């Protein structure tokens, strides 16, 4: 039976906060192909270029013809749930703490049998299902059989809920509420049912009407936070770090200079100070607090979201120093992801293309509205992904980057499109 998340009971302070446990996380290199696709929200399986057989589990050689020419292809996941069982015993601590656990075998229409967790919305086997690849708390791909039609979400199933990071009923810190993006994210989180949204405000003497409007929402609290000031970050982490379930880092300093169009490094230093060192300061102060609450009942600390930029992937020379600062932040986010992995806290990176704000004014459309990026943040949390490329420009650049990074470098050097 599916059921939406309810407001969790208040914590009983005399009980020990449990330590996080993770599902088994060791994978072969080839099996990580499943995870790589799942991290972007897709189910991909290997297909044999010689005989066309679809592979599951991931193989080094085709299970039908032994060819090693296997390539990853996105699958629609449709198939039939042939049989199911319920685990009532487990040696793995993660499952032991969550028994009983429903699993089954799905005959994919593409032609392979796969073992999958079964969503509570799926009726008893045999029946038609759709298999999705989701990320478990260890960050590895796990297959989930959901009803073939409709839009069942992971958070509708109490067992599978923690494979998502649904902001409903959660407490979220949005690190910078001075930008249109930060404000849109706060609004989207409120609409998604977040319980409490702390919104960081730097340089309070620069008034912002959008932030003033957010002050009136019942679930928001404006807090003093300047990511360039270590003391400010440390103080806020001390005050609310132990309450936060999700951090959404929207702090961003964007100027539109190439190397030659701005003398000196002062502006580039500011970009690095907010975009890179800001993330580092936040991570040092807030990540330990989140890790300590990674198994704190139904509303435990669960995710960290960075709004990066598609410019982090390959330098956009017209915004050259900004691109470099976002690339630095991207690199650091990978370290943060690795460090938060043992606690099961998911680090989600968004790589939006140009946003329709004052700093991308001279970029041609299509540009993302701040609200569209905010929607992508909430969707990423509700889903089960690590990397999101919202919008047409980001999708296009990503495809070109994956196809031939050197070609993209040349194209961006000649003006982008």
């Amino acid at each position, binding site marked *: 039976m599916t059921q939406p998340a309810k407001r969790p009971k208040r914590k009983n302070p005399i009980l020990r906060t449990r330590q996080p446990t993770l599902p088994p996380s060791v994978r072969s290199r080839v099996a990580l192909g499943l995870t790589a696709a799942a991290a972007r929200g897709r189910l991909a399986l290997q297909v044999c270029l010689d005989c066309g057989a679809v592979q599951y589990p991931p193989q080094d050689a085709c299970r039908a013809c032994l060819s090693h020419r296997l390539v990853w292809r996105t699958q629609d996941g449709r198939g039939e749930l042939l049989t199911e069982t319920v685990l009532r015993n487990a040696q793995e601590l993660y499952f032991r703490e969550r028994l009983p656990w429903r699993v089954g075998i799905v005959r994919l229409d593409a032609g392979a049998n796969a073992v999958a967790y079964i969503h509570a919305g799926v009726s008893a086997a045999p029946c038609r299902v759709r298999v999705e690849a989701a990320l478990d708390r260890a960050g590895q791909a796990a297959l989930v059989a959901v009803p073939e039609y409709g839009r069942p979400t992971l958070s509708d199933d109490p067992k599978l809920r923690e494979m998502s990071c649904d902001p409903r009923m959660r407490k979220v810190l949005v690190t910078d509420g001075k930008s249109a993006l930060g404000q849109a994210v706060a609004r989207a989180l409120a609409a998604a049912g977040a319980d409490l949204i702390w919104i960081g405000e730097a340089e*309070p*003497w620069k*008034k912002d009407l959008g932030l003033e409007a957010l002050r009136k929402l019942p679930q928001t609290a404006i807090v003093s936070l300047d990511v360039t*000031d*270590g*003391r*400010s970050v440390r103080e806020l982490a001390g005050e609310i770090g132990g309450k936060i379930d999700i951090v959404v880092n929207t702090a961003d300093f964007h100027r539109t200079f190439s190397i030659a169009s701005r003398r*000196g490094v002062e*502006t580039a230093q*500011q970009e690095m100070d907010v975009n890179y060192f800001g993330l580092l300061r936040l991570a040092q102060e807030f990540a330990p607090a989140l890790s300590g609450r990674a198994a704190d009942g139904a509303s435990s600390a669960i995710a960290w979201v960075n709004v990066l930029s598609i410019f982090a992937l390959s330098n956009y020379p017209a915004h050259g120093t900004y691109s470099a600062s976002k690339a630095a932040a991207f690199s650091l986010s990978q370290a943060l992801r690795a460090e938060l992995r043992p606690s099961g806290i998911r680090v989600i990176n968004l790589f939006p293309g140009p946003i329709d704000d004052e700093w991308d004014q001279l970029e041609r459309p299509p540009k993302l509205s701040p609200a569209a990026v905010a929607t992508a943040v909430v969707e990423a949390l509700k889903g089960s992904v690590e990397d999101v490329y919202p919008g047409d420009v980001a999708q296009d650049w990503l495809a070109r980057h994956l196809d031939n990074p050197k070609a993209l470098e040349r194209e961006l050097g000649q003006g982008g499109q």
Partner: protein
Amino acid sequence: MKATKKSQPKRSTGKLAAKRNGDLRAILSSVVASGSVWLIDLTQTLSPNFPTIVLPPEMGQARPFRMEEVSRYDDRGPGWYWNNVSFGEHTGTHFDAPIHWISGRDRPNNSVDTLPVEHFIAPACVVDCSSEAKADADFLLTVEHLKAWEKRHGRFPVDAWVLMRTDWSKRTDPVAYQNLDDTGQHTPGPDPDCVRFLVRERDVLGFGTETIGTDAGQAAHFKPPYPCHYYMHGAGKYGLQCLCNLDRLPATGALIVAAPLKILEGSGSPLRVFALVPKG
């Protein structure tokens, strides 16, 4: 932006020091120890929360005061505590040298490393504008005000600091201190004629304020823009801003010590400013 605690007269053993050391130190310490002189700190604490001047975001920006810990009796340095600090030259209580403004760029000895050391100590005249500034954040000091002041306290001496007391430093909330709205900053300062008078007819050493600049908040719209910077620095004069405790200075008689950091080609610097004030 807390006001500093009241300075108390030093109770050191002035006479003993006088016997042991040279004359000048003997004189100074016996003066201080005798209790006939107050030392008053006119400096705001350098802190990350203290605002810097606001310019349009596409322009280069003065970096606010920042502090990163190097070690604090820990694995990074077991027995000692220290920080790396960074800030713009025009952060906190700070000194403006003539080279700061385009009008002063060709003056001799116009940067903080070259300006004459004899200017580090100078008399101060304090013009009390606190009630006017309280009534009107955009209050402008005029020649008329200065002449009225001179009628009561005598002529502004050559090479004296003229300090505009507004009690603005008592606005401990940075928002109230900056006092910005969508037409910019609203803080008191001198009008162009007032600055021309002080420079050309009184030949003062410089002009000091409690606000974030020596010019008024709306001075970008004056003729010329930022007259205090333009005329003072154009004539080789100095600026002091973000001062505090001016309410504890007499109109005349105080001696100001204001020695900026010796920064190569520096346009200014944060500094400790204090006043020696005769007691009684």
